[in-house]
Structures are given as structure tokens and as C-alpha cells.
């Protein structure tokens, strides 16, 4: 749950970054692809999903505190990615989502 929560938070923040002019240009986000509004909605959605995943892991007061830290970690990862591997922020989006979903499904099944 923690790993998928982190992956989903990273994907969400990457989407939010791509909804910003500077970072979209930085990452070479194509103009025809989902627009800035869609990125923003998807980003916030993914963040909410990452919170839900961590809270589903149990003990919600501690979960909320931990999720705050997870988002911070994800933000640091996205910032470093955008700085040093800008196009990776774009190409890694889909795999991040899929990996997070797979991990969550796996954990739910166990």
C-alpha cells in the first residue's frame, strides 16, 4: 500500500507539474495530448487516490501523517526528475500508474 501510494503520488505530482507551462515545455509534453486542465484534474485525482490507498492500509490518523510525508517525498522525486531527466517525467507517467494499480491489486489480494 505504501509503495503504490508513493507511486501514485509521484504520478499525480508529475501530472500537476505537466499542467504548468514551464514544466510542460521542460518535459516536451506534446500540445495535442491532454490539455492543462485535464492534467490538473488527473493530478489531483491521482493524489486523492494515493491518500485513499495509504488510508486503506489502516490506522487512519497515522496514515494521514504518513501520507503527508509520502507526498513530500514524491514531490522531491518529481522535482529532481524534472531537473535532471525532464523527459522521463513524461515517459514514466503511464508505467507509474500501472505499477501502482498492480501493487495495490496484489496487496488487496493477499
Amino acid at each position, binding site marked *: 500500500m505504501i509503495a503504490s501510494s508513493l507511486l501514485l503520488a509521484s504520478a499525480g505530482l508529475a501530472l500537476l507539474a505537466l499542467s504548468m507551462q514551464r514544466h510542460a515545455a521542460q518535459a516536451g509534453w506534446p500540445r495535442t495530448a491532454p490539455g492543462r486542465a485535464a492534467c490538473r484534474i488527473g493530478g489531483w485525482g491521482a493524489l486523492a487516490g494515493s491518500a485513499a490507498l495509504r488510508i486503506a492500509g489502516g490506522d487512519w*490518523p497515522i496514515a494521514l501523517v*504518513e501520507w503527508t510525508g509520502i507526498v*513530500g*517525498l514524491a514531490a522531491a522525486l518529481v522535482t529532481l526528475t524534472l*531537473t535532471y531527466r525532464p523527459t522521463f517525467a513524461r515517459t514514466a507517467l503511464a508505467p507509474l500508474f500501472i505499477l501502482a494499480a498492480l501493487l495495490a491489486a496484489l496487496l488487496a489480494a493477499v
Partner: protein
Amino acid sequence: MAWLHGWAGLALGWLVYAIALSGTATVFKGELGDWMRPEIVGRAGQVEAVAAALDYLAKAAPASPDWYLSAPNARSSATIASYEAPRADGGRNYRLVALDPITGRPDGIRDTLGGEFLYRFHFELQLPYPWGRLLASAAGMMLLVTLISGIVTHRRIFADFFTLRPGKGKRSWLDAHNVLGVVAMPFHLMIALTGVLSLVALTLPWAASARYGDDMARYVAEAAPGLVAPAATGRAAPPADVRMMLRDAVSRFDGGTIGQVAVIHPGDAAAVLRVTRSDGDQLAYGAATSTYAMATGRLVSFYAEDRPAKRTYDILYGLHMGRFTPVLAHWLYFLSGLALSATIATGLILWTQSRDPARTGHRFVSRITVGIVAGMPLAIAAFLWANRLLSPTLAGRAEAEVSLFFLVLAAAVLYAVAMPPRRGWAWLMVLCGATWLMLPLASAIATGRGLFAGGALGGDRLFVAADLLFLVLGGAGIAIAVVTARHKPPAPRRRRAAA
């Protein structure tokens, strides 16, 4: 508001940085204690360990008015005892001793404060009571005000959320300052506020005097009803079965474990045994306390906090302590603490870079900043080196470790004052990184444990993890030194507006 952010940040900035960094290390207080006492290898159940420790204290400290114990747990394998002992100069003070969980005795365990030193330094700053705590409170309030004014001043922090532009001198420092401040912003605000709140009984006693007047005894009794402390009778009485009392306490803890144990007036007929549940599985600081009459083993009181305002305070305090179990949470606290320390450090560096280097005052500030920012992590490393280098049997070695910490810090600041800031910074950071990088090797030679002593094969998880962390910290120190040394500032230094 920019004026407030810059000057409030500088006023106690060096102190807040030292507090933040020592607090960050304190996240792993228990683990650090184990690392600094490599002689302890045995493990024992909590009831057995506490009973053994109490047996030892009955012989070693019968005259102490009370004994306090931290039971061993998953993060700390020693039983940590504290009791009042006579000092060499005739006075008495509390002494901290680590006891072997199996034998209950301190024999053969090197004398060290372990994680306790950085924990105490974090809010007492090695100053006499109450000055250290007052200064730490002021620093916490200053941090809180600086953070809030920083959010107002750096208006673009949310627009520039993901923006880091390396290799651009001051621009890069500002980006780093903003990013580090923003990604862990909830942590920064929380830790500053809860830090101030944790010392509030000392700093803001006015609400207590509003309701209790001068009757502080009634206030203390009502604020913490679980801390039963009867008056001594002066008659001696042998203790009943301690193990039974401890087991009874655990059975009331709802699946929890033992956190702290206290004996008030040991040996007296009125002695009580207070067993407090570990708060390691909840947000709130402190948990249920079960108290027994030592002479009879009878339950005197069981108290679990359920008053809403006090619960709220306990949760805020617990958020500061960050002791709740998931190991990930400890690492997130550690990383966020590093981010806060780095936000303060970059802020201090920006302050000096934004001002005229020709002025003596500014030059002095920028050199001291270099000394403190690089000197603190160096001094912490020196503290750990001292633990490995000083002979385990040396008299007064716990104090010697602490002295070395302050000596190295002072030396770093003196060196930085004597050097041009860029050179001083580069060399101190290289030294700091190298000191951390070489610590695992020194530790392996001194103790035969850890990464370079086959610890990974033997499953010595704590020592291997510590070594890996030291290597990462050392590598980061070297990397910072190299990156900042490589950057060539534009030759004619223009004067720029204040950030």
C-alpha cells in the same frame, strides 16, 4: 514581510539549524543508543528485563528517591535507567545508565549518553535549566514566524513548486531553499508549532495560574492524574512480586507493550510501581499508566487519558516526537528533518549572498554561517567517532564524547572565521563528508560489527543500516562540496537587491 523573513531567519538561524539537525538525528534515538553500545547483543522480554533492572537498582541506588526506566523495545535493546546519585563534589544529580536486558547490570557496557545527548541538546542546548529550554522555545517561535513570513515573501513558491535550476549560483540556492521549504511545508509548520507547544508549561504558565493560582501541587496532580506519587512513610518494606505487577499492567494495555517504568520511594512501605504503556503504536504522546503498591502488589490506579483538550495536546506533542511505529514514518521524519535543516542552511547562505560582502559585519556573518552549517554535521560525526575511538573503560568517557562534539564544532567555526567563505565551505564540507564516509570502517575495526565486518551476512541489520546511512551522508557531503566548488561566480560581483 521580506524584512521580517530575512532578519527573523538570521537572528536565531544558527541556533534553529543546530536544533533542527540534532532533532533530525534524534528520530533514531533508540537505534543510535544501540549503535553506540555495541557490547549489548542479548535480547530479553520486557518483563524479565525490567525485573532484572529493578533488582540491580535495589543494590546500586537504594537511596535514590525514585528510579525511572525505559523498557527495551524493537528499537532499543538496552534498559535505560536513570536515578539520583551522589556527585564527586558532594551534590546529587540524575545519572543515566544503560543496563543489559538479560543481566540487568551495566557491567562491560561502555559509558555513553547514546541518543540521549542529541535529544537533550535539541531542546536544552547544553545550557543550565531553564535557559536552554527558554532559548529553544524562542528559536521555535522564531522558526514558526519565519516560515509563515517566508510563505508570504516567496510568493512564487507554489508557482515554482517543481523548479530547480542548478549551476546558477544564487538563483540555485534560492530554488533549493524554496523547494526544500515547500515539499515538506506541512512538516516544517507542524514541527515548529509542536516544538514550541512541547515546552509551553515553562514558557506560558499564565493559563495555569488563571485556574490554580499558586496551588501548583493541585495543578500537577490534575494535569497528569496517572502520575501517582504518595508521600514516603520512612518505614522500609520489601517489594512484592514485581513480575506479577508488570504482567498485570501489560494485560491492561490492550495489546500494547511497556514503555516506561517508575518506582517512587523505592524500598519504602509507601513505594509505588508505575507502569506506562508504550506510545509507539499511536500518534498521541504518553499512554495509559497502571500503578501498583510495591509492598503488596495491589493495583492502586489505572489511568488512560480521555479528556478532549489534554488528548489534543498529547496528539500535538506526539506529532513532534514522531514515535509511532511504521518504520517508514521514522524515515519520513528523518528526511523531512533534513529538508528543514537544509532550508534553514540555504536561507542563511542566501542572506549572506544577498548582501555586500565588503562590509565587515556581513563577512563575519557569512563565515560563521559556513562554520555552523558545515560544523554541525561534522560535530555529530565526531561524537560518533569518539564513541568508537575512546577506550570502552575510560573514566568519564560519556562526558568526553560530548566534549569532543563541542570541540569539533568550535574548531569548525574558528576555521571558517579565518577562511574566505568559499574555501572554508569547500574544505569543511569535504572534511565532513570524509568523516562520515570513513565512520563505517572505523566502527568495523573498533567493534568487529557492521558492513565491513560481514554484518550483512550475519544479519546485523541495525549496524549494516547505520553504515549504509553514514556512507550516503558522507557521499552527500562530498557531492555538495564538489558541486558548490565547481560553480564559478560571475567575476564582477554586482550588488543585488535583498531576496
